């Protein structure tokens, strides 16, 4: 059996008295697209941040390519993070830099590439996400939300990562632009043959980009299986979520 690309075992994280992750077990095989679905505040982002090392879990183990990554020194962490690319929910582009320097960031800072060479690669990656040369010189603030997402995607793939994380890739976009982004993700992932881990609450997006879907609820993975089986999961929590029903076992904590 091959080593899983990412493996989480019993990952627990609490903020003060609030338990956000309550023993998450999750495995992502190499070349697989796993999508974690779940409502707001169920710990999807925290899971991602724990894998990236932005947060340290209280308990449990996270392995990337079989290497334990929960307690790494900052330089060892930088080495591991070279395998990663990440598309943030709000794109998180550096507004002090023009678009092309955003895309070329990992190449210039991480790989020590010359600026002109890095720019050439950045323009190629921008072309891959359907953006032209004249966009490259603009500042991120001058772009629309959809374009920022595409630049974010170009930045995530610029250094040829092995694993790409997508944090709510379609949130805040109109349905057409959301579909464009979904198509881009599917296409780039297929072209590059990478492993991806996405979090979303957009079921259209999840169905489009996933091989496998896992559902996170109250800090635990309550269901995990191939995309084709999500409609026959036999799990009433999953059923309620994918059909977006207000009534069901999941109760929204709303004060009436």
């Amino acid at each position, binding site marked *: 059996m091959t080593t899983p690309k990412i493996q989480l075992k019993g990952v627990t994280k609490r903020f003060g008295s609030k338990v956000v992750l309550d023993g998450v077990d999750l495995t992502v095989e190499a070349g697989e697209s796993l999508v974690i679905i779940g409502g707001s505040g169920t710990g999807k982002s925290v899971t991602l941040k724990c894998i990236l*090392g932005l947060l340290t879990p209280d308990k449990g183990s996270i392995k990337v390519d079989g290497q334990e990554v929960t307690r790494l020194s900052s330089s060892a962490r930088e080495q591991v993070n070279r395998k*990663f*690319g990440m598309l*943030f929910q709000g794109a*998180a*582009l550096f507004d002090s830099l023009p678009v092309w320097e955003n895309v070329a960031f*990992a190449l210039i*800072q*991480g790989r020590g590439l010359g600026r002109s060479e890095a720019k050439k690669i950045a323009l190629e990656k921008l072309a891959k996400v359907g953006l032209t040369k004249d966009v490259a010189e603009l500042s991120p603030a001058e772009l629309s939300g959809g374009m920022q997402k595409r630049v974010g995607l170009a930045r995530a793939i610029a250094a040829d990562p092995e694993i790409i994380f997508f944090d709510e890739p379609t949130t805040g976009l109109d349905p057409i632009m959301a579909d464009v982004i979904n198509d881009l993700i599917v296409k780039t992932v297929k072209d590059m043959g990478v492993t991806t881990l996405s979090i979303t609450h957009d079921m259209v997006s999840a169905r489009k980009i996933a091989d496998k879907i896992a559902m996170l609820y109250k800090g635990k993975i309550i269901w995990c299986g191939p995309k084709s089986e999500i409609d026959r999961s036999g799990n009433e929590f999953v059923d309620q979520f994918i059909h977006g029903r207000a009534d069901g076992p999941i109760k929204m904590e709303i004060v009436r």
Partner: protein
Amino acid sequence: MNPFALVGRFTIVFLSEIGRLAEFAAAAVPSIFVPPIYLRLTGQQMMRIGYYSLPVVGLTAFFTGGALALQIAVGTTFGAETLVPNVVVLGITRELGPVMAGLMVAGRVSAAIAAELGTMRVTEQIDALVTLSTNPFKYLVAPRIIAAVLTMPLLVAVADVIGVMGGWVVGTQSLGFNSAVYIHNTLDYMKDSDVISGLWKAAAFGFIIALMGCYHGYYSRGGAQGVGSATTNAVVSAAILILATNYAMTSFFFGAGR
């Protein structure tokens, strides 16, 4: 609420804040010396922190020196022509130059740094740096600290000159002193050790200004309001620390036995 609980809670918050700041400083200081050092960014910050603070610092020093000369002259009937340049050059180089410049730059720069880093924090740009294998301490914090520590002494040197000039302008134009005598008296009473102690203070203030801006920005939470309070806290804490450090350094340089 129980007053004892209130005191206890305040103490805990205060101590944990100090601990967090110490932790931040312990991570920030080594990042200044360990490569990679981002020279381009450090140069940019030196322009923003040092060069663009010149007008504010110059104006402040000018009016402070002028007001000081006026204050000393009023009510001094005998020997004002010696006393005014003496007090002005001593006051400016020892205390008012570094402190006024420090406070003005704290207002300008700590706030700007806290707002910038705070916005980067809440828009996940700092997280993005980490995912791009870039240490935010080296990329964001170190250039700002280096730039502030290097440029503050230069700013204070300029403030010293302009502050003394402010006194000279008021002395010769409004108090009717002889210009040559004023300059002669100023040079007579100016001591190298006074100027140098002021420049050391300036470097320390530069460190405080950048550190407070970075610290409050780095840990800001919760959107626009969080960034706003980070900015306020950066300026207030930088100003208080500057005044406290100034006292400590004054007592070190000029303390008992001198």
